[in-house]
């Protein structure tokens, strides 16, 4: 019995050994690009990935796309795997900013490069080498645009916010998520600089999802009815959950003249198809477009340039040139790496322009 | 009388890898009789029954029911054909009522397809009345005593219009009264022309209830005999294949000083043992008699620290032990072989060696406080050898041994702790005659070595044959202590039923 075990084990090992010997690296010259994507369960990320796949096919690129399923450790493992398989150039939506430097170092060690989107890489990550790029829209800006839209609204209807006091119900994304932190900071800072008193009547996470947002809102509406004048969500999914809650709780004035039939304006971010539909029905007040196609096209063109020419320094990707002036959000706030930053614009989406996207 | 047999099993052969479990076994059972099936554990009784119920597929042989060849897919199929089995272990759903248990899987339905509880309860009531079972159909079955639950299982078998009922050790957890009631029911079955196959180790019962007895040994059928032409000794010698005139071994022990003393021990539960005092001496076997429900096990568990006590004192070697726990008991040289071997005895998925040494690991630590596996194993082997435990290897899982051998492993476990006082709760329950005798021998040797044994037993002959003194409990109270000379069935019975 013991002997049989031994025989089988040895046989198995010999076999694997043989295969291991026989294995040779693929030597053809197709362009290989690795894509490390943080979580395909999110609409934005999925759109980004779909566009990447499309571009890869059009350009004859062998694209290996890995989904980290929201786990930093898994993303690092996937990077290791792809590097072992000979991938050198990457398009990355990191799971977390803090891990980008480590990823860049590993890629630099094999002489490759990467373009980061959606979640910002750290300044240090871009400093690892000249071929590490930002191809993204700074999250702060999304918050700033939300603040701008809020300002426009209350400038038009000052009686709805007496004394420039905003009493806000605020739905956060997953706590600790970089977008959650930056969008909130951009939003608050801009409003305060515009002279508003920002008062969060209630603020909590709904984990980016509509159903949790609706649940939260139902509770808040029961507790804080009449004590707030604005509802802001960090993405469209949660914003739509809030819209549903307002409707079922009867907080509707049926007067679309201010842009919404709800008693209070509701704001989101992402400009998803559902959100645009809701705007068309005068429910959701406004949103901000985070351009998944723009980001992924820019990142892809950078990676493609690296893979074909060895570097992408100074190229124009998807019509965007490297930034020249620093902005307030990292990593584009450091003059040393500013030439590696490709800023894909956010776009405020309001009544005036939403039809362009439909 | 009907000339066809209710059940015929002819030339049944079943081989397992390496073992011929059944060798051309033939068993014929007449309707309206009680047919005892006897044999030591491992003789092939269970295998034969498993072939009957389709749990095993026999290699060769024919099974006929009322003269017609038949083979059952499984026990449910058998039940529908009027062949049912009452197991040693209960197989009911404790949280459901008696009626629901009886009609499990074939509940009567009303017009719209819902369970017709009224009909179910009515039918159950008439069935129970017919068998003189005094239970209400609506009662939760788990609230009944074990014996009542068992009786209900018999009622269930009857409710399927059974023509053959197999009873596997039905009395192992019953008191004498309950056994009498069971026999009454069996007699009624006999009157209704049912064939009863009665598997038991208890000689007395066979002679009371059975008409015929078939004896098996080593996978072979030795023969079928009329009970009237049988004697105790003859039956035993047929079973073990040798003359066994001695049922209890001779042992000479010197009864010495008091080892364990219990004073006014009372349970916090008012219905359990109250105000019990006794002492056990070196070299003595103290028997504890009583009916089921006399709280004997509870008392023993309290002494060993498994159960709480309200008041009372326990002295070991003259020192009072407060807040007894099993660990303290072991440290003070007490060991306990529990009644429920499967529930609180064996570690089913551990091997023999570990099962033996588990209570004495403390003695086998090296300087680094790591276990000395080699010595542990050697000692386990030594004890099990001395007790003649039959096992393929020491690495065999204990769950794969027969009941008797499991018991020997557990005795080995306690001997390894070098106890002065050994509490043995039903030490020979469910064990075949040969192994029983060996366990008696071990007990004899222990007291000859100057140890004390407290033996709880429901078998009168064992109690009388082995004990120096017998303390009898009734409803949690001590009703008397009998010396060897006064130890008779009648005296014990009188004390055991004092408050009834």
């Amino acid at each position, binding site marked *: *019995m013991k002997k*049989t075990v031994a025989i089988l*084990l040895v046989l*198995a090992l010999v076999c*694997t050994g043989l*295969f*291991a*010997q*026989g*294995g040779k690296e693929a030597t053809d010259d197709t362009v290989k690009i690795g894509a490390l994507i943080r979580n*395909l369960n999110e609409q934005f990320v999925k759109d980004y990935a779909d566009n990447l796949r499309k571009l890869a096919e059009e350009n004859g690129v062998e694209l290996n796309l*890995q*989904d980290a399923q*929201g*786990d*930093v*450790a*898994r993303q*690092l*493992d*996937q990077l*290791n*795997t792809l590097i*072992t*398989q000979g991938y050198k150039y990457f398009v990355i939506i990191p*799971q*977390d*900013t*803090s*891990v980008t430097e480590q990823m860049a170092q590993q890629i630099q060690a094999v002489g490759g490069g990467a373009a980061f989107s959606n979640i910002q890489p750290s300044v240090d990550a871009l400093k690892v080498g000249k071929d590490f790029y930002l191809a993204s829209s700074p999250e702060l800006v999304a918050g700033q645009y939300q603040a701008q839209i809020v300002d426009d609204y209350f400038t038009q209807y000052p009686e709805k916010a007496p004394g420039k006091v905003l009493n806000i119900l605020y739905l956060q994304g997953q*706590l*600790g998520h*970089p977008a959650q*932190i930056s969008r909130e900071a951009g939003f608050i800072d801009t409003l305060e600089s515009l002279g508003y008193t920002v008062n969060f009547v209630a603020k909590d*996470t709904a984990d980016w999802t509509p159903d949790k947002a609706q649940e939260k809102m139902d509770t808040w509406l029961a507790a804080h009815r009449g004590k707030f004048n604005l509802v802001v969500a960090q993405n469209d999914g949660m914003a739509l959950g809030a819209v549903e809650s307002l409707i079922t709780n009867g907080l509707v004035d049926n007067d679309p003249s201010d842009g919404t039939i709800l008693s209070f304006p509701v704001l989101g971010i992402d400009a998803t198809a559902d959100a645009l539909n809701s705007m068309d029905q005068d429910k959701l007040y406004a949103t901000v477009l985070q351009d998944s196609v723009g980001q992924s096209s820019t990142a892809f063109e950078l990676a493609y340039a690296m893979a074909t020419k060895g570097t992408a320094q100074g190229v124009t990707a998807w019509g965007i040139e490297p930034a020249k002036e620093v902005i307030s959000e990292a990593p584009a706030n450091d003059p040393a790496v500013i030439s590696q930053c490709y800023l894909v614009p956010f776009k405020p989406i309001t009544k005036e322009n939403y039809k362009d996207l439909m | 009388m009907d000339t066809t047999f209710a059940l015929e099993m002819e030339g049944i052969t079943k081989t397992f890898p390496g073992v011929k479990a059944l060798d051309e076994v033939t068993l014929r059972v007449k309707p309206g009789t009680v047919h005892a099936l006897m044999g030591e554990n491992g003789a092939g009784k269970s295998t034969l029954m498993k072939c009957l119920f389709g749990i095993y597929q026999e290699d060769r042989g024919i099974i006929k029911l009322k003269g017609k060849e038949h083979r059952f897919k499984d026990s449910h199929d058998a039940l529908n054909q009027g062949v049912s089995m009452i197991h040693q272990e209960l197989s009911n759903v404790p949280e459901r009522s008696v009626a629901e248990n009886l009609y499990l899987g074939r509940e009567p339905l009303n017009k719209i397809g819902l369970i017709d509880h009224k009909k179910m309860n009515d039918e159950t009531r008439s069935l129970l009345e017919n068998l003189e079972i005094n239970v209400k159909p609506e009662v939760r079955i788990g609230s009944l005593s074990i014996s009542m639950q068992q009786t209900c299982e018999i009622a269930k078998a009857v409710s399927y219009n059974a023509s053959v009922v197999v009873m596997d050790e039905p009395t192992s957890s019953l008191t004498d009264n309950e056994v009498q009631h069971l026999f009454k029911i069996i007699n009624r079955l006999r009157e209704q022309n049912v064939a009863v196959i009665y598997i038991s180790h208890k000689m007395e019962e066979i002679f009371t209830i059975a008409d015929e007895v078939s004896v098996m040994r080593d996978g072979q059928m030795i023969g079928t005999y009329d009970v009237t032409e049988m004697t105790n000794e003859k039956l035993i010698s047929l079973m073990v294949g040798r003359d066994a005139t001695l049922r209890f071994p001779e042992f000479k022990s010197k009864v010495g000083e008091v080892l364990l003393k219990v004073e006014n021990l009372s349970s916090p539960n008012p219905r359990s043992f109250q105000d019990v005092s006794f002492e056990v001496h070196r070299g003595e076997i103290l028997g504890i008699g009583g009916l089921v429900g006399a709280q004997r096990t509870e008392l023993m568990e309290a002494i*060993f620290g*498994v159960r709480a006590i309200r008041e009372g004192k326990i002295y070991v070697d003259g020192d009072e032990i407060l807040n007894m*726990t*099993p*660990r303290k*008991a072991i*440290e003070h040289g007490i060991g306990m072989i*529990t009644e429920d071997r499967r*529930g*609180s*005895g*064996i*570690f*089913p998925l*551990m091997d023999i060696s*570990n099962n033996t040494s*588990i*209570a004495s*690991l403390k003695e086998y*630590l090296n300087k680094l*406080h*790591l*276990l000395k596996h080699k010595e542990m194993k050697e000692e386990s082997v030594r004890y099990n050898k001395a007790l003649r435990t039959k096992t393929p290897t020491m690495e065999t899982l204990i*769950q794969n041994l027969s009941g008797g051998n499991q018991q020997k492993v557990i005795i080995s476990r306690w001997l390894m*702790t070098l106890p002065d006082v050994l509490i043995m709760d039903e030490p020979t329950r469910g064990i075949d005659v040969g192994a029983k005798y060996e366990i008696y021998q071990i007990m004899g040797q222990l007291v000859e070595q100057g140890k004390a044994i407290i033996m709880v037993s429901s078998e009168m002959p064992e109690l009388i044959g082995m004990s120096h003194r017998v303390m009898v409990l009734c409803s949690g109270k001590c009703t008397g202590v009998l010396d060897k000379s006064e130890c008779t069935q009648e005296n014990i019975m009188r004390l055991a039923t004092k408050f009834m």
Partner: protein
Amino acid sequence: MEMKKLLKDSKKVATQYTTWVTFVGLLLLLSILTNGQALRWGSIRNLLIAESVRSFAALGVGMIIITKGIDLSIGYVVCLTASVAASFAQNPDYSSAVYAGQSFPLIIPIVAAVAAGGLFGLFNGYLIAYGKLPPFIATLGSMSIAKGLQLIYTKAAVVGSLNQNFKNISQGSVGPVPNLIIYVAIAAFIVWILLKHTRQGTHFYAIGGNAQAARVSGINVERDLMMVYFYAGLLYGTAGTLLASRLGLANSLTANGMELDAIAAVTVGGVSQNGGVGKVSGMMVGVFTMGLINYGMSFLGVDSYYQQLVKGFIIIIAVYFDMKKYARRA
């Protein structure tokens, strides 16, 4: 004749050593599918690193399952301990550090995280052993408590910008062997000693196999049960430290869902949910089997949705054979 016997024995081996057979089979399959690429040292090294932190969780919950318990709090306890470790290892000049402007010796984050894990273990153990709460419920509660504490402690922010010395704990290597692999080997060795060569380890098996019999055999069931959760807690604390060090950060998403991965891995590794059965070797093989599935599929570029599916089936199949093996022989 020889061949026939070999064939028959192989069948026996397959049922007896399900865990190993699954592992070797997957290894073979993967080497064929990838033309041997997946089995070069670089790949194996990646695999070992990827599974290292999970190994700690698996060893902990493996011991717990042997005592017939379960632990659902692993993921969030590791998350909490990782955050605690990270908070004491941040660069002092990092403005959003939990303890901004302060720097601590390297030992502090390690001790703090391991202590936090140990405390949680004691808490779980006390509730289960002395409070008599079902392990499922007790750890379900402490899971939520751990998550709450983590969010409160970090104010839901990422604890990042860790100093290089701390990161080197996990990211360094001794020659070609990464530190993490060495730590796993040490932990597995210690747990092996505990389970196989100490009294308490034997008691764990006894308690899981038959708690009542264990009590009668003089085993202090309550104390031993509490200790098994405590030991597991220490392992989770270590896992948290290593994870923070490896990732260079901790946030509220760190290690989420690790309990299910760890429970699945040890179950595939032959640790029976019925208690009383399980070996360290099995736990480790279980972890690496699950790792191999993850790794192999991402190597082959299989869609992540299918990875979940395949993992599910592997768990069910492995446990099915295991249950058959230990089914009581009638």
